[in-house]
């Protein structure tokens, strides 16, 4: 027990005390199977009530109906941390972003420095967890490892901040530099546990598209989305969008780590999936750019609709930044397909909203399906075509929703 941080240990005692003394939020029934696990819906700080898959570290899933909006409101934006010890207060007078390692001039920047001494830039981009939609792998194959997210581990926001390139150039990257490591203020419960540390190639870091964001949809970042600073990597899964970003370390050598080499990896083959045998037999690579995907925001599953109604089916589509060409829809379980109407274009990394006017003419059960294709011809796989990987990453098969017409 001496290995556990004292502060954390005291915190745990407090938590146990609170559960018996205060109004605790309890999922009373003893659950032993994820099929029966209905996460409690609770409001966390600065958030509307969201599905609480875990309170510590906080894992909060957004409801499906947020996909009726092109921009995800901050108070419904999903939350996913890796470590249990997250600062609950940050004093901006003391907070500094350190830029260190293989640089000519190490920097120690306040949020005010970033706002006043650098050119501000803005980008609208999807932020999606690598494990988003993971539970749907179990529809056609074995359930994968990891948190069984529905579609609600993604959102799209307008991010404002400073180019990572500008920060690195201000510090002056040395010629020997090959990698950039990033980490934030979240801490493990024990000192021995590896920190959440992510790395990227120096060329990627200097590409000009990555930003250190201090605002999200025109406001400070919500605490649980990484206040006061978060890295934004448009087009990429969120595993390196480090929250509460506090250190940028320029390195000459790659640093081996669990979070780079084991977590967030897929088999290093063409389908990025397991063809046969065990997942441990494959050489692995980190997940990186996102795959073309579309989801239905309305109707939600099991909606009951009156025959003859004019139903406005809506949702969003996105890809790695090539741009959505078309979103097809089927209301007969995939037998026939029609085009949806693409709505306003918020930029190549943003959600592309789509709409389809539907008038169901007969009573009965209907399966609505959507399938997006991007400008370079990437198309969503059918559910029975998607390649399986043990980590349950990058799920992007055709989305479907069952509704009842009465």
């Amino acid at each position: 027990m001496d290995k556990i941080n004292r502060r954390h240990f005291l915190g745990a005692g407090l938590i146990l005390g609170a559960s018996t003394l205060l109004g605790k939020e309890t999922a009373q029934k003893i659950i032993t199977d994820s099929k029966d696990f209905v996460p409690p819906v609770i409001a966390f700080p600065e958030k509307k009530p969201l599905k609480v898959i875990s309170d510590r570290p906080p894992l909060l899933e957004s409801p499906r109906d947020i996909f009726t909006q092109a921009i995800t409101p901050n108070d419904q934006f999903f939350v996913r941390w890796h470590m249990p010890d997250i600062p609950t207060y940050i004093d901006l007078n003391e907070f500094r972003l350190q830029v260190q390692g293989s640089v000519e001039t190490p920097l120690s920047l306040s949020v005010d420095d970033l706002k006043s001494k650098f050119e501000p830039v803005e980008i609208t981009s999807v932020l999606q967890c690598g494990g988003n939609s993971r539970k749907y792998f179990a529809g056609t194959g074995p359930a994968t490892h990891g948190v069984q997210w529905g579609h609600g581990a993604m959102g799209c926001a307008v991010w404002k901040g400073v180019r990572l390139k500008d920060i690195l150039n201000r510090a002056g990257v040395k010629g020997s530099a090959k990698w950039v490591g990033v980490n934030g203020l979240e801490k493990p419960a024990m000192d021995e546990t590896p920190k959440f540390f992510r790395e990227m190639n120096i060329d990627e870091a200097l590409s000009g598209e990555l930003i250190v964001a201090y605002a999200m949809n025109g406001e400070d970042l919500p605490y649980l989305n990484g206040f006061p600073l978060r890295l934004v990597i448009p087009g990429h899964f969120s595993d390196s969008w480090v929250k509460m970003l506090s250190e940028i370390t320029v390195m000459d050598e790659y640093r081996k780590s669990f979070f780079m080499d084991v977590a967030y990896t897929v088999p290093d083959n063409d389908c990025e999936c397991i063809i046969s045998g065990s997942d441990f037999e494959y050489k692995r690579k980190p997940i990186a750019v996102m795959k073309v995907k579309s989801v239905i925001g309305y109707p939600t599953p099991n909606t009951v609709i009156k025959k003859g109604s004019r139903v406005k089916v809506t949702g969003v589509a996105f890809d790695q930044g090539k741009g959505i060409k078309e979103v097809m829809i089927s209301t007969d379980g995939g037998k026939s397909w029609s085009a949806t109407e693409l709505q306003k274009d918020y930029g190549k990394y943003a959600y592309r909203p789509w709409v389809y006017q539907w008038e169901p003419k007969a009573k009965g059960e209907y399966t609505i399906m959507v399938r997006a294709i991007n400008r370079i011809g990437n198309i969503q796989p059918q559910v029975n075509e998607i390649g399986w990987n043990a980590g349950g990453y990058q799920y992007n098969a055709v989305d479907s929703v069952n509704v009842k017409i009465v």
Partner: protein
Amino acid sequence: MKKIFLLTLFLSVTAFSQVAKPIEMPYVDYPMVKGDHDEVAQQYCLICHSWGYILNQGKKSRPYWSGTVAKMVNEFKAPIGKEDQQIIINYLVKHYGYESTAQH
């Protein structure tokens, strides 16, 4: 009119400002099956994460839970002795899994 403008300005400033005091994180009491030394699983697993992590995985095979406990010890450095590791694996397989040699 001026009043309304000032009021609007005030509201927008407060809405955009940072959290002034520490946030308070809710606590969720995810219930665990009692017995078979659930206290050992509680003692170690809950150091780093809530029981929601286990519930959300669904029923898993013995190799899966053995591998997961090994990951917690080897990668995340959970201070669990060999004997307690076995107690936790048996508890998870019995109540949150099934006997099988399948990996998943």
